[in-house]
């Protein structure tokens, strides 16, 4: 009797917690959709920030995130390959693995400050390159850890089979092991891209923001997230509506990339 009662209480409590947790999520999504969709017009996508749109911001955000990926994905993947395939429990490998894990939880604002000191201050002002570097620094540890973990899932017999057929180590890694881990690594890259596309703190005082359309990375560079941060604090309703619209669009982008990533994982298994 007592046990059954306890069972029911715990069931109710845990269900309630789940409902509250998910409730907040839907509340956020609901408010975002309600305020966001009503604020989206054709001009939101057609105009730049200076004319009350987000065209230049979207282009700017994606440009920085893509260039950061172009920097971080090869670097992170090669580091991950080193850790799993060449490190072999060496002290250097375990040191790098630990540092990389710590880096993953480093506050993004700290990374922003670091990049500011190194790439903004000495170069006389905010610039797009600094933003890219900050995003890449955020991304590298995630890529390292995904590559490392996904390579760990490839059975060692597969490597041995390749070696036994007369392959050299680097060929087997590049042509077989990476191929076997391809889906997992691609998913990791997608998820880490989704992570950095929504980052504000590393951009706030590295690339800052720009109202105009530009592809010049040596100056201030347009950013969707920094704009949301700025627009939300302005007193006029037009700015705040644009902030809602931009938030909604950003959320949809992140959601879509996440869903694609998760779908890819599921298809693998």
């Amino acid at each position, binding site marked *: 009797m007592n046990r059954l009662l306890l069972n029911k209480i715990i069931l109710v409590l845990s269900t309630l917690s789940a409902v509250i947790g998910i409730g907040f999520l839907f509340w956020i999504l609901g408010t975002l959709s309600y305020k966001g969709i009503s604020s989206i017009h054709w001009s939101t996508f057609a105009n730049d920030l200076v004319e009350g749109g987000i065209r230049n911001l979207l282009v700017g955000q994606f440009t920085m995130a893509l260039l950061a990926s172009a920097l971080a994905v090869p670097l992170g993947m090669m580091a991950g390959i080193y850790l799993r395939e060449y490190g*072999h429990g060496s002290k250097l490998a375990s040191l790098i693995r630990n540092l990389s894990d710590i880096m993953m939880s480093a506050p993004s604002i700290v990374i922003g400050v670091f990049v500011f000191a190194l790439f903004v201050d000495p170069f006389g002002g905010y610039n797009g390159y600094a933003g890219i570097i900050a995003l890449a620094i955020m991304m590298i540890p995630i890529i390292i850890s995904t590559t490392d973990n996904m390579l760990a899932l490839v*059975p060692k*017999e*597969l*490597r*041995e*089979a*390749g*070696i*036994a*057929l*007369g*392959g*050299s*180590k680097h*060929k087997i890694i590049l*042509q*077989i092991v990476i*191929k*076997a881990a*391809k889906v997992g690594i691609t998913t990791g890259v997608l998820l880490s891209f989704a992570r950095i596309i929504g980052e504000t703190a590393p951009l706030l005082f590295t690339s800052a923001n720009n109202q105009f359309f530009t592809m010049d990375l040596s100056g201030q560079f347009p950013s969707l997230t920094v704009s949301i941060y700025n627009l939300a604090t302005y007193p006029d309703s037009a700015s705040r509506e644009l902030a809602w619209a931009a938030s909604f669009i950003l959320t949809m982008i992140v959601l879509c990339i996440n869903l694609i990533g998760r779908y890819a994982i599921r298809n693998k298994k």
Partner: protein
Amino acid sequence: MTDNNLVLEIKDFSFTYASADAPSLKKINLPIEENKITAMIGPSGCGKSTLLRAMNRIHDLYPGNKYEGEINLYREAQEKENILHLKKENDFIKLRQEVGMIFQKPTPFPMSIFDNVAYGLKLAGLKNKTELKDRVEKALKDAAIWKETKDRLNQSALGMSGGQQQRLCIARAVALKPRVLLFDEPTSALDPISTGAIEELISEIKSEVSMVIVTHNMQQASRLSDYTAFMYLGDMVEYDKTENIFLNPKEKLTEEYITGRFG
């Protein structure tokens, strides 16, 4: 027994793993006869897989292992080479093209059936498309899997059954025309029907290649092999013609093991 019939000759061979203090193999002596099947039996942990994996030096994938003694690979009647002296990667690659290996679990690569068999050939430098095609077809025929695969050569090898995958792995190894094939418990992950197919295949390719088989299955050793080596705790206890080992073992330990009194 003349030296001329040997393809491999293991002499006073000791092996110590990087992480171990004591050697896992102690002063092993074992001849591997050309175009014969040699079975290695013994309880788990006796060192038979360790010995097998020394014959193509796949141990060297993991650094720090220690070899002593000789493992001689005979090429022509006279020419022999101690493979323990190899140091350069190119020499290892050459060795592994001559001494192939089949693993316990099938290890198809994540690519098409054709590419799986062609992979080793491409590694060996074969580029000519028609020759590649012919060699792949011949290997698949040799491994008795051509009928099942000829209509799906471009499909992923991962979609095959376990037994088919294992025969594909044998085809892949045979394609390189190795002098020796090493089998590390090749059927212990397979059902009886697939096991039968693999055993049949092994007997069929005997005329072309010398084979060493590590097995836990005593019937398999007696059915397949010409010679049998019994190992125990890192020692070579007895080596003889298979019929002598099974019908008339000289050592008491061998008799106890094959009659199932321990192991």
